[in-house]
């Protein structure tokens, strides 16, 4: 590194810059942005940006958490529906049992963390693939959400959080807006950035981060050198559940009502964002920033198609094409970067 080594080829500065694995995802995002910016003026306006950053932020929080979990070699299919559970618990407790909003949220947090802990515990104890375990959790939570909501309210949605005690204060923190350049940006964007920064710190600069990479890369080898693999995995499931709580709360506070089916189907969007951002499905490799950028790519493609005004019938077609484009750009840049180093 310091001394020149005849076994290393000379590399330019520009190429060196491309070495960071996140850069592939960033380039993918730029491609998608450039594409839609060319299609629609609104898309590239401040308002437009505020618009597509909004869904990207909540998706991003989850994608980052799921990315950590996937780097650790596991899946969580129950994360999406858990956001719904959190919202339902919060709204039901705050409106039907008259708890202050913050108390209801704390109760929901406890529920979420418990679900995450159980997921992790069952996975490490039974040795079943987390795909199956969290699928079962997913199905069971979905049933609970619907069954309990129906039993309590007779319909499949609960609402009225707006009238609950302490609503406005909590809302400002989690679901408010911040005016920037005359446009309201969602405060969730800040949460998303914070979560990404924290996850990046943990992943690259702490012992826990080292353990996460190790258990995802080769669990047996990691255990053999003394990594507490079970604890690491359980902690990852709990972290994911914590993220689901954050997102579920943000959504509940913002929309003040929650449907029993809320969050169903989102679990795959999280995984998709993480994979677009460069996480390996087999574990052991990926980055939090990549997942956050993956969420932006997904959010841009998702909203860009609407801004471009293309026929809604063909929506998924374009979405698929954009995702392929973005990941190809990512891959292309990474290949190029790999020619520079390693």
């Amino acid at each position, binding site marked *: 590194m310091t001394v020149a080594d005849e076994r290393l080829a000379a590399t330019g500065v520009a190429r060196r810059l491309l070495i960071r694995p996140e850069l592939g995802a960033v380039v993918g995002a730029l491609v998608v942005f450039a594409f839609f910016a060319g299609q629609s003026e609104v898309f590239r306006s401040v308002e437009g940006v505020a618009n597509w950053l909004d869904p990207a932020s909540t998706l991003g929080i989850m994608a980052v958490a799921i990315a950590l979990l996937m780097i650790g070699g596991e899946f969580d299919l129950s994360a999406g529906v858990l956001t719904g559970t959190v919202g339902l618990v919060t709204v039901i407790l705050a409106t039907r049992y008259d708890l202050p909003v913050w108390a209801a949220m704390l109760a929901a947090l406890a529920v979420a963390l418990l679900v995450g802990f159980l997921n992790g515990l069952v996975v490490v104890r039974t040795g079943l693939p987390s795909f199956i375990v969290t699928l079962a959790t997913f199905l069971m939570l979905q049933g609970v959400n619907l069954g309990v909501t129906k039993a309590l309210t007779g319909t499949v949605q609960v609402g009225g959080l707006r009238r609950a005690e302490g609503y406005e204060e909590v809302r400002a923190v989690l679901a408010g807006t911040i005016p920037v350049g005359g446009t309201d940006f969602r405060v969730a964007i800040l949460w998303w950035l914070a979560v990404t920064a924290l996850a990046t710190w943990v992943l690259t600069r702490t012992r826990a981060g080292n353990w996460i990479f190790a258990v995802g890369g080769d669990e047996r*080898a990691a255990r053999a050198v003394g990594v507490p693999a079970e604890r690491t995995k359980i902690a990852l499931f709990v972290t994911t559940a914590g993220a689901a709580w954050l997102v579920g709360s943000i959504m509940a506070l913002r929309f003040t009502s929650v449907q029993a089916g809320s969050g169903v189907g989102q679990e795959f969007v999280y995984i998709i964002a993480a994979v677009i951002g460069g996480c390996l499905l087999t574990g052991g490799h990926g980055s939090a920033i990549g997942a956050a950028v993956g969420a932006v790519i997904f959010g841009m493609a998702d909203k860009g198609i609407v801004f471009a005004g293309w026929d809604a019938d063909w929506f998924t077609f374009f979405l698929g094409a954009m995702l392929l484009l973005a990941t190809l750009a990512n891959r292309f840049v990474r290949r190029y970067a790999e020619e520079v180093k390693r």
Partner: protein
Amino acid sequence: MTGDGAVTEGGTDAPPLLEVRDVGKTFGGVIALRDVSMRVRAGEVSCVLGDNGAGKSTLIKILSGVHAPDSGSYLVDGAPAAFASPRDALDKGIATVYQDLAMIPLMSVWRNFFLGSEPVLGRGPLRRFDVTGAKRTVREELRSMGIDIRDVDQPVGTLSGGERQSVAIARAVHFGARVLILDEPTSALGVKQAGVVLRYVAQARDRGLGVVFITHNPHHAYPIGDRFLLLNRGASLGEYAKADITPEELTSLMAGGAELEQLAHELSRGGPAAGPGTPGTPGTPETPETGPPP
């Protein structure tokens, strides 16, 4: 040479660092190890020798906490121990180089090196992995083994076989506080690096560590070993002190008898390339690893 060459209870009064008594291990229907006893004493090198599949790796995995023995007992410092995981063994200062559970291929050299024992800086929520310190340490440790790594950020999976093994050894030497367990550590190493490893073993022994050393190379085992445990098809053939066994006997035991004598003749031929170093020339070992001629 018979079983009576086995070591009798010595005069040392301190309990051995590690001791297994009549341990056995089965994997499903496979009996990998049966009734094997062994002691690891401070300041001694215990060699475990045996044919392929004899159960050597299984034995050291029991010592290092990877496997729990199915039968028999395991004592650390004379007290019964039940390691739930290799973490427990590490916490007792037992560091291991595994034959097959080595490294995480996708992780960089320095991350692998400190895996499970990361050095930290700062405190509280600011406690963080000392990255620059870690990188520097790794580079130094490897250089002193004769491995000049290009870039400690390189994923371990792209290292050469010997480089990879060197990282594992350097790690064990770095973290081994009381016992060092090495499962065929020199198998992929160059001549120079293998020499360095043997020197490490001698240094560790001299510092009072207990060393368990597994090898198929009698030239490596004899000079450094103090005791030799011989395994065959999962069972023990006895434990010998160096004083009780000659290098020839050891080699012959490892090779499973004298049947290899003829190999030297088979390898030789009257081809055009036959030169000064053909087998039979004095000073050159006639057969590979079958030891010196009588």
